[in-house]
C-alpha cells in the first residue's frame, strides 16, 4: 500500500535532494520499468551485441521506442518491449535512463 501522500512527498523531496535529481514526474515508475531492461542490457559494456542504454538521450530513446513500435526498427524482441509500453511509461523510462547516466 502506498504511504500517505503527504509523507511520500515530503520524503521524496529529501531523497530527491540526496539523489541530485527530482522532478514531479519521478515517482519510481521509470526505475521499475528499467529493471526489465537490466535482464539483457549491461550497465557498462562496449561492443556488446546488446548495447548499453544507460545515459541515452531522453528524446532519442523515445523516438527509438516509437520506431520499434511502428516496425521501422526491426528487432522483434525490442518491438515486443516497445508495444508493451504506454506513452507515459516510455517517457518515465526515458527520463530514468537519461538521468542515471548523469550520476
Amino acid at each position, binding site marked *: 500500500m502506498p504511504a500517505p501522500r503527504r509523507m511520500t512527498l515530503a520524503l521524496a523531496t529529501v531523497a530527491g535532494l540526496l539523489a541530485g535529481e527530482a522532478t514531479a514526474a519521478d515517482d519510481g515508475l521509470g526505475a521499475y520499468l528499467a529493471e526489465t531492461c*537490466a535482464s*539483457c542490457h549491461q*550497465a557498462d*559494456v562496449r561492443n556488446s*551485441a546488446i548495447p548499453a542504454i544507460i545515459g541515452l538521450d531522453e528524446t532519442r530513446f523515445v523516438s527509438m521506442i516509437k520506431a520499434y513500435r511502428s516496425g521501422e526498427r526491426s528487432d522483434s524482441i525490442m518491438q*515486443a518491449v516497445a508495444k*508493451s509500453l504506454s506513452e507515459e511509461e516510455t517517457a518515465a523510462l526515458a527520463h530514468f535512463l537519461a538521468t542515471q547516466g548523469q550520476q
Partner: protein
Amino acid sequence: MNRWTRREFARLAGTAGLVAMARPTIAQGKARVVIVGGGPGGATVAKYLAETAPSLEVMLVEANAQYRTCFFSNLYLAGLRPFESLAHGYDALRTAHGITVIHDSAVAVDPAAMTVRLAGGQTLPYDRLVMAPGIDFRYDAIEGYSESTAKLMPHAWRGGEQARLLRQQLEAMPDGGLFVLVAPPDPFRCPPGPYERVSLVADYFRREKPKAKILVLDAKSKFSKQELFQDSWAQRYPGMVEWLPADFTGGVKAVLPAERAVKTADETFKAAVANVIPPQTAGRLALDTGLADESGWCPVDPNTLESRLHPGIHLVGDAIIPGEMPKSAFAANSQAKVCAMAVAAALTGSRRFEARFFNTCWSFLAADDAVRIGASYAVVDGKIAATQKFISKTGESADTRAVAARQAVAWYSAITADMFA
C-alpha cells in the same frame, strides 16, 4: 558500482516509512526477509530488495558456495564453453549489496511460527519468506530410474556436477555410438532446452564423432520451437537425429542403468550415452511446506508472487505455476523483480506498480546460429498472460542467426550480472 541498481527516490521514500508501517518483529527493529535458494530467482530477489528497500534485513540461504547455471550448459556439453564460465559466487551480493548470505540447507519451514530451520541447526525467524526452490525430479515416474541411477544416466538438468558427468560420457563415447535423450512431459524447466541440447551435441558429433547417432524419446507429441529445431536438424545434421514422440513409442517405461538401455512400450534401445531427463515437480522444500497443489507446482498471486496456500510466503522461478510464462532463468529473474517490489511494499509501505514480466529464450542450433522465442507479460484475469509474443522464423539468413547467437552470449553476461554482481 552497477548503475542499474541505484534506485529511484520514491521507492526509497517508501522504505523510509518503515518506522510507521512495518511490524518489526526482529531484534534491532529491522524487518527481516529470508530468501531460500540462491539461483536466478532467489539471488535476484535478494539483490533487488537490498537495493530498493535498504531498511530491510535481507538474508539469503543457499547450500552451495557457487551457483552453476543450467542455462548455457549445453554449450559446455558441446565443448563450446568452459565449465568454470558457468559458475557464479555470492561475494558481490554480500559485499556490494549488504546481503547476509548463509551457506546452509533449509530443511524445514514453519509458516505459523514464521521460521526457517537450517541443516546446521540454526532457526531463522522472518517477517516475509521468499522461496526459490527450483525443481525436483519425480524418481517414481520411470521404472529403474533413481537418484543414484542419475550418475549412470545423467539428467544434467541442473548445472554443475550433472553437466560434467554428461560431458565426460559424451567425450568417452566411441564414434558410431547412440546418444539417447529422454525428454520430459510438460511442464518442465527450460522448454526448448532438450532440443537445444540435441542440436549442440549434434554439432559436437559432427566435429568429433561423425558416425554417431542421436535418438530423442519424447514424452510429448510436440515441443517448443519445434519447426525451427527440426528444420535445422534436417539441414545441418542430415541422418543424425531421430525424434520419436510418445504417441509413436508408447512412452519411456523403464531404464536398465547397467546396460545403459531405455525401454519404451514395445522396444529396448541400447545407448552408448543415455541422458534421461525425468518428469519434474517444484523443489522438495516447497512440497514439504505444503506450498504445491495436486499438480506438484506452487500456485501464487501473480501480482505479488505470494503463495495462494500460505500467505506471507512468496515463491519465484521454476517452482511456481506461472500462467503463460515458461520455466526459465529469465522468467525467474523477471518474477523476482515483481516479488521484491511486493515484499518491500508489504513490509515498508513502498509503492507497488502493476506487475510486468518479460522472457526471452535463446536456443543455439550451432555455435554461430541461434533462434529466439519470448514475450512480454501482464496479469490478465488473475493469471500471467503473454501480451506481445515473438519467435524466430525458418529460413532466416545466416547473418540474422549469427547476430542472435552473439546476443545470446551478451544476454548471459547481462543476466548473470543482474543476478549475482
